[in-house]
């Protein structure tokens, strides 16, 4: 009896259908692309404000009073006036933040390192309640430092604090 050999002469292998796998892979890819979120870089301005406790005894020697900066606001929350209070009196800079930075630069001088004014100096910010937070951050930025022409960071005030608010103060 002649037995017919059905089929081709090649070996029959197990075929794996790749199409559904590629479909699922593309589904996953689209999912991750849609849920991907580009996060902007964030930084911090550090403020150390312990609950002030009255200290007994005489004040420290070489105690430098903080530079006081008052930020006055318009009714809509924008900056109305910047007033710097130092030993020579009150100086008003209007809405010129760069002038505030220039004042801070002049206050600091060129000395840096331990024992310099820059290492000890402190600035106290007295902002109006309704002032927009972005304006306060702008003032803090101007007081903290700047990038010079060579893109090097020049630090100004490192100690920043807010003026204590009286109880019940509100907008």
């Amino acid at each position: 009896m002649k037995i017919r050999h059905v089929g081709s002469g090649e070996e029959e292998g197990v075929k794996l259908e790749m199409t559904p796998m590629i479909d699922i892979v593309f589904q996953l890819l689209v999912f991750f692309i849609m849920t991907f979120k580009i996060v902007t870089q964030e930084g911090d301005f550090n403020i150390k404000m312990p609950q002030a406790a009255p200290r007994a005894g005489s004040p420290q020697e070489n105690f430098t009073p903080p530079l006081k900066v008052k930020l006055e606001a318009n009714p809509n929350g924008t900056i109305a006036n910047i007033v710097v209070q130092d030993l020579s009196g009150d100086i008003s800079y209007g809405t010129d933040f760069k002038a505030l930075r220039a004042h801070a630069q002049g206050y600091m001088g060129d000395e840096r390192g331990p024992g310099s004014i820059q290492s000890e100096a402190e600035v106290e910010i007295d902002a109006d309640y309704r002032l927009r937070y972005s304006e306060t951050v702008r003032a803090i930025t101007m007081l903290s430092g700047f990038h010079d022409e060579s893109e090097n960071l020049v630090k100004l005030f490192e100690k920043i604090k807010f003026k204590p608010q009286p109880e019940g103060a509100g907008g």
Partner: protein
Amino acid sequence: MRIKKQPPGMAEGDLTPMIDMTFQLIAFFMVLVNFSQAEQTELIQLPSSALAKAPEEQPEYPFTINIRKDGKILIAGRTYDTIDSLGIKLDQERQFAQDRGYGADKITVIIRAHESTQTGKVQELIKKCQDAGLETFALRVKEVVPGSSTD
């Protein structure tokens, strides 16, 4: 002479490199995706600063507080209507940190406030945290986008 006509063959592209690249992309996005909403929320538009730079040292015990534009507080996904209602939460957080060996001076309160928030709200929050014994604060800002100016 009989010439056999060959049927036109179909051009088959090799999909293997494409599948490899697709897997690479998936792996890339899987590594980067972050489903955690604990620290960041799209409701908060941070103010920009040219000096924004990630801190060199991470705080030992960071505690993030978000302040929305309307003054409401967001902590770990939970909303507090007023700053006065935070007292218990702050005490709990301080106690929790102390139980884990971190003193109040090791807790850094990271304040993420919307740029349009009133500064007074931020000051009130700082005062509330001070009342709870917290003394170290970090005002979080975002990097200035190249081309925009804050000067």
